């Protein structure tokens, strides 16, 4: 028996049924531009769908059974193709994805992580997401989430985070992040914005069951901007609008900002200084369909030495060759900067499928330098049944993950407080067969068989006679 008030029943049932201690699901579209946008509020911004869950080991059902049930239940709930996050995608990278709540003591816990970079996020995912909120999209801040406007943003993503805390119970966090570009949508190339122009909606009424809801605006450093309504709480370069029923803001509330003295907005010219401490570029090159080189270049933008974990979760579509792994700075080999290398090659599962390979290493990146890692890869030749209907598009590979590690020296440094960084996804072109091949093979081999049979049979049964030619 279970009673739900504010916690959504539909999600609660799933968590109970599969005994999930911690769950994170993110559905994102586009690639997060760390260099220009800095770090997101929620670290999980990898393109496509990413799901990871911590589950206690029990004797009744195995963790893998529950993981598969969880995937299917969530894909039903959110209308996403999470069902395809099967053993070909699932790994357990415990260092990069630790428990964020309390560490349970009642049972040993295991992690399952999978990502699907080719997942397209759209309205059918947003609607069930909004239904998890007590006031849905009828009141409160969620009323702003107009799908037409949100999905027009430069980047958008939603996340469901369930965290178990020993003293507080289960905590559910629903997040929706989007990056809007008012300059792109405005006719006069101005950067003025307000809620009405961004979302086509204003905040009509607060959600009556919300304890607090607030809008925070980060104020730009230049002075010539104006913010409306004009009486927010200022704190530390932020303007905060509290939306409780006792607040003195007029409803509907349409927060906005404008630059009265600026005629049109000009983008600052490059070179720009990246906002995030790390900039990562990851590419795959090589001209053939069977081999290639995966190269990652990591730049440390901060004046301190950085220690970063590097995690590569590669589906068995690519085989990484560890002996070709090279770490270079300015074309000079620097193998000493890569340590703690762990590599799990793809292993054959019971269902005749290959699990992904996992590469985990610690990188020491000197200040203001670019580290280049490269390794050779082999591209798999798939069975013809494993190809998707649109095989010619290529295969999406999930992005690599860089995550902070505790610094060796205990100096307090401002640039060390960074979170998980996802690189953009890659598209790889695998050798694609001609799909009429099976019938061609049948016809060809039949013809060959018939030829051989016919000639031998004729030789054995032919009757030789002498024909006299009348001259």
């Amino acid at each position, binding site marked *: 028996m279970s009673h739900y*008030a504010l916690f959504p*029943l539909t999600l609660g*049932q799933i968590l109970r049924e599969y005994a999930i201690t911690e769950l994170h699901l993110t559905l994102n579209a586009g690639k997060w531009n760390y260099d220009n946008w800095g770090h997101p509020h929620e670290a999980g911004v990898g393109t496509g769908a990413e799901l990871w869950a911590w589950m206690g080991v029990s004797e009744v059902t195995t963790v893998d059974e529950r993981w598969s049930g969880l995937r299917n239940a969530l894909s039903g709930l959110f209308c996403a193709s999470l069902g395809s996050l099967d053993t070909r995608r699932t790994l357990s990278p415990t260092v990069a994805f630790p428990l964020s709540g309390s560490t349970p003591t009642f049972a040993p816990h295991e992690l399952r992580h999978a990502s699907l970079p080719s997942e397209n996020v759209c309205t059918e995912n947003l609607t069930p997401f909004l*239904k998890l909120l*007590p006031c*849905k999209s009828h*009141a409160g801040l969620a009323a702003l989430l107009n799908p037409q406007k949100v999905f027009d943003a430069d980047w958008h993503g939603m996340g469901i985070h369930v965290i178990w805390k020993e003293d507080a119970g289960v905590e559910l966090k629903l997040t929706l992040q989007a990056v809007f570009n008012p300059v792109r949508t405005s006719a006069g190339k101005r950067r003025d914005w307000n809620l009405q122009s961004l979302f086509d909606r204003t905040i009509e009424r607060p959600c009556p*069951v919300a304890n607090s809801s607030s809008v925070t605006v980060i104020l730009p450093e230049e002075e010539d901007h104006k913010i409306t309504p004009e009486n927010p709480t200022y704190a530390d370069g932020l303007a905060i609008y509290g939306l409780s029923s006792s607040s003195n803001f007029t409803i509907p509330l349409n927060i906005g900002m404008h630059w009265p003295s600026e005629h049109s907005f000009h983008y600052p010219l490059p070179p720009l200084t990246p906002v995030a401490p790390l900039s990562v570029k990851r590419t795959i090159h090589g001209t053939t369909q069977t081999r290639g080189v995966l190269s990652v270049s990591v730049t440390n933008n901060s004046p301190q030495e950085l220690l970063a974990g590097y995690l590569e979760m590669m589906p068995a579509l690519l085989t990484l060759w560890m002996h070709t792994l090279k770490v270079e700075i300015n074309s000079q080999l620097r193998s000493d900067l890569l340590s703690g290398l762990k590599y799990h090659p793809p292993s054959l599962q019971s269902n005749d499928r290959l699990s992904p390979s996992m590469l985990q290493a610690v990188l020491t990146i000197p200040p203001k330098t670019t580290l280049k890692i490269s390794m050779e890869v082999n591209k798999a030749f798939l069975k013809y049944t494993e190809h998707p209907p649109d095989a010619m598009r290529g295969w999406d590979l999930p992005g690599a993950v860089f995550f902070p590690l505790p610094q060796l020296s205990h100096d307090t440094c401002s640039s060390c407080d960074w979170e998980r960084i996802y690189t953009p996804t890659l598209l790889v072109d695998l050798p694609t067969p001609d799909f009429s091949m099976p019938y061609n093979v049948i016809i060809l081999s039949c013809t060959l068989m*018939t030829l051989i049979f016919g000639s031998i049979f004729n030789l054995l049964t032919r009757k030789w006679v002498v024909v006299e030619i009348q001259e």
Partner: protein
Amino acid sequence: MNSATFANTGSGFKDPRKLSFERDWIRRTVLASYWIVIILAFPFWWHLTSIERLALPTSQIRLQVQKNIIFPIAVHFDASITEQNPNLNSRVQTLLRDSAINEPGRWKGVDLRLQDRNDEASNLYTVALGEQTSIAHSRHLRVNKTDAQSATRLSSILSDLIAPPESSTSHSQRVVQYSNHYRLAFTLLNEGAAPNRFVETWDVQAALAEFIFPLISRLSILHNFTVESQVQYYAPLAFEPKRLTFGDTEASGLTQEDLTVFVNSAEWTLASSVSNDPVLHFVLFAPSETHSPMSIIDSEGRPTNQYSFLLPQWGSIFILNNEFNSSSLHLSYNDLKPVFCNFATQLAALLGVPPVPLGLSMEESSILSDWQLDALLRRRAFQNVQGSQDTLHSIVKLVDQINNMPVGQVVRDDVLDALASLHEAYRTAIASPALALRWSSRALSMASRAFFNPGMLALLYFPAEHKYAVYTPLFASISVPLVVALIRDFMAWRRGSQDDGRR
């Protein structure tokens, strides 16, 4: 002759007829060995490419389908009644027999006997004289003096208790399909959530403990239940209710048509997809300020005093019309009493619990008498047996009709298991309806599992024509020289034998 001249020209060629392999019998042996290999290989090929179709126990299924589950019931009239009216027994018996002939559907599976002696069998029902006509403790009925005199009255009470009438088709469609496990979802739906005009909390646990749990613990012999509750805000209706005006007060009314589309499944998130168990929904609907008070109106547009309605096989809805005062964000146990009393009745109706016959009262404050429970057990077991018989029959028919349908070991095992369970259900029906129900439910689930086995669909989409398309390029081109050689040799042999005959 020709060859002789050829040989005589002295060109060094041998006469072809003299070549060692150019003998008729060698050629014929070669040809025959080809054909023998083909004929021998044919059964192997046939076996390797055919679909696995295990034989189903068809005759057994036909036999079981004709059988029916019978529950013998013995009713004993206490001496206090039969003393005054000695031939009451036989008269009630005749009346009951008439009723069984007139309404065969209602009495199906029930074999009612009136017993003279009172042996302490477990499934014996007793009737005795009492102060008033009422159902007493387990399987005991008290009748007052006037009722005890009339055989018609007695027989009608008994038949209502033992074989409750299926009043109409709508009634039988209201009852949900039998399942081992149900989810009961109690939802408090706020249509709007204007400040101070919504319900935030409710004493659902106390109300459930008082009204629902006693009922489901009595029914636990039939089903397992999972109970869930939730509170939702902003659950709009999919239609605009009719505005009603009475003098200076306004109200909204729901017509009969509105009730059928009341559930707005697009906007209300009532259930999740976590299990396949059927869900029964019980919705307490709090209308928004603009729609309040809300009532159900009859065909002439007048409001009725009904605030709840039942959706067949889905659940029940209660419209809350409490007048809110500013502090009533909470529904207390007292507020919920009428609601959950109603939900309990609706739950019983949805699960097919037969009502207490008119004019009868319950002596003890028990939720459900043993008479009702037994009648329900018998009906559910009977329905399950019928369902599994139908399913088994359909499997046999389907497999007969579609020659491409594979029948694997799993399907066969399930069918055999279902048959065995059916047999057990027939056997245990004599002693215990509860056991019979358990076996019948197992039979039904096994039969359905066999029917929906995904393996049976595997080859339906790969017809035999595909196989021929693959084999023709090989077989056609190989068989032509083989057949032609056979015919040619046969002709040559016939000509040869005719020549011999002429000679």
